[in-house]
């Protein structure tokens, strides 16, 4: 460094705190290390290291006789996943559910976000946003249990369906799981779309109207393309949250999803390597999803 650090040019400040801050001012690298260090350590040790361990474990195998993990590199777990039809069924079911929930939430979230961002009076906006995030104030489990009661055999939804002449219990079904997930993740879909809608400049809409476009055309050709990255961002949340959740299917559903199968493999079969291998599947799916989302510009919209 050629510049004389400022701290050296001025008389030394009093007090140890000041002295330390002056010293740090002169030692930029130390300062950077102290500010970023804890965060980076956390990221590397807790987050990345556990992912790496997961990856490594998936290449180990389980000795069937002693139930001990054998640390020999093998692709056996991935072969098992590929050749056992049930894991494919579970994966397809999980991805299908994630897609259905994502689509549902998009359809529900867009009008709500549009209403809040572009139609509600500015004074009402914070109140409406508050209403959107309000469910997040209560515990996740409480909300899932609520849906367990709503969808149960003598619950309100069943009575409601009975009024329109449908006597079909949806308790412990995939429909119940779909409804629950769609409810749970709706706020996560509304907020990014709201953010994107709010950022659409009024001038563009006025220009569109000046050029003779009617409401529908403006919506299709101006608003939707501008909001599209926000919608993709919303789907990242709904898709990944659905793919990773295993509590809601236990409580309101019956069928196994990826998370349930992993839980079963790790907790019941105590086959951690196979569980780890199966855990790689949603990671790969989400990885591919994020690559596509990035191409669609979703990361600028979050």
């Amino acid at each position, binding site marked *: 460094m050629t510049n004389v650090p400022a701290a050296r040019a001025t008389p030394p400040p009093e007090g140890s705190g000041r002295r330390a801050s002056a010293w740090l001012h002169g030692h930029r690298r130390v300062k950077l290390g102290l500010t970023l260090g804890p965060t980076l350590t956390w990221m590397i040790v807790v987050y990345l290291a556990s992912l790496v361990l997961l990856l490594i474990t998936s290449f180990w195998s*389980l000795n069937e006789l002693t139930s001990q993990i054998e640390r020999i590199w093998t692709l056996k777990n991935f072969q098992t996943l590929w050749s056992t039809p*049930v*894991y494919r069924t579970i994966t397809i079911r999980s991805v299908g559910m994630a897609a259905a929930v994502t689509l549902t939430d998009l359809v529900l979230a867009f009008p709500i976000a549009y209403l809040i961002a572009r139609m509600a009076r500015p004074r009402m906006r914070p109140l409406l946003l508050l209403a959107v995030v309000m469910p997040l104030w209560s515990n996740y489990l409480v909300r899932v249990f609520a849906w367990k009661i709503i969808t149960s*055999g003598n*619950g309100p939804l069943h009575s409601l369906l009975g009024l329109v002449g449908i006597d079909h219990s949806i*308790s*412990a079904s995939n429909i119940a799981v779909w409804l629950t997930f769609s409810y749970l993740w709706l706020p996560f879909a509304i907020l990014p779309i709201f953010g994107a809608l709010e950022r659409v400049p009024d001038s563009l809409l006025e220009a569109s109207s000046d050029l003779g476009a009617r409401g529908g055309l403006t919506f299709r050709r101006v608003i939707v393309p501008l909001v599209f990255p926000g919608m993709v961002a919303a789907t990242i949340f709904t898709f990944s949250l659905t793919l990773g959740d295993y509590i809601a299917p236990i409580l309101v559903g019956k069928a196994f999803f990826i998370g349930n199968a992993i839980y*079963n493999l790790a907790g*019941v*079969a105590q086959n951690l390597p196979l569980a780890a291998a199966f855990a790689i599947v949603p990671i790969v799916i989400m990885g591919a999803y994020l690559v596509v989302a990035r191409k669609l510009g979703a990361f600028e919209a979050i």
Partner: protein
Amino acid sequence: MKHVGRCMALFGVLAIAAAACGSNDNGGGGGGAASSASGGGAVSSIGPTEGQLNLIAWPGYTQKSWVKPFEDQSGCKVTVKYGNTSDEMVQLMRQSGGTAYDGVSASGDATNRLIAAGDVAAVDVNTLFPEYADVMQSLQEPAHNTVDGVHYGVPYMWGPNILMFNTDMVKPAPTSWSSVFETSANPYAGKVTAYESPIYIADAALYLKATQPDLGITDPYELTQDQLTAATDLLKQQAGMIKKYWSVYTDEIDGFEAGDMVIGTAWPVNQSILVSDGKVPVSSVIPKEGVTGWADTWMMSSHAMHPNCMLKWMEYTLQPDVQTQVAEYYGATPSNTKSCAQLNKDLGADAKNYHCGDDAFLSQVALWKTPLSECGDDRGATCTDYSTWTNAWTEVRGQG
């Protein structure tokens, strides 16, 4: 007992040091620690208690009304972690190298796994507990907790897995497991429940044992690959009729009360709770094909931090009056035959469902035990083990 005192003092400072003190129980330790018999390595005496006891128990097994008196007389403060499934209990017992919990009320599908892995300590029950002589004949040295004549704990409660049904919806009363397994023209399809565990495969095997003799099933826990496949196929067929599998006992209680479930396998405690809730009328039968069942054993961790308190607890749970209390609360049957007089008197006409002290009945119940590749008979090591069962179970559950 200076030695123990020092251990206790250290406990506050250094958990590791306390672990070292606690592990004396295996090494034939000095001072007041529980010591082993010179020969078999089984614990054969009880030293001064450590003031603390950490248990893993089935929900309902450690109610205040019988734990409090134990705390008062032994000076061991009891903390309980409820285990909802056998698999969870096995995992918990292995936590922190086996030092996190002193003992567990393990069912027969967990016990052999714990014994084989060395997680639980051998206990010289006949020397330590005079009450052991009163334990039912069939539970004196059952395969699920006694290996080569070495005991790994004391029996607590046992009970059958009964066929429970809603008496309003299920008419006439069922007499066979076919009501939950046969799919053709089954009026209860979509309202059936079953137990969410690989061990439930044994229920299907037991049914096949009676209905398809050509499969040659002798013991529902000792299945060759072909027999396991037959049982798995039956369960896959059944899956279409299942409303929901119950894992935690409250799942089944909720399901019956919501009208989602009307028939299925149950523990007696589930029926007791439904009856006392009084929301839906339920009854149960022992179907003609027989039943599976469970017998639970209090086992001590081989790395227990508080072995003497655990031994005191085992001694206490063998007391006839304690077992009567548990049996009446839980709807299970005591293992101590001295409990029966009081139980029969308290329960009156209901007592016949408990089969207290009834060795003839118990010998008919196919008690849960861990499936091993060694069949236990002249077929040798051709049977399917628990990990094969869990894979089979994943296939049953994964499809729908």
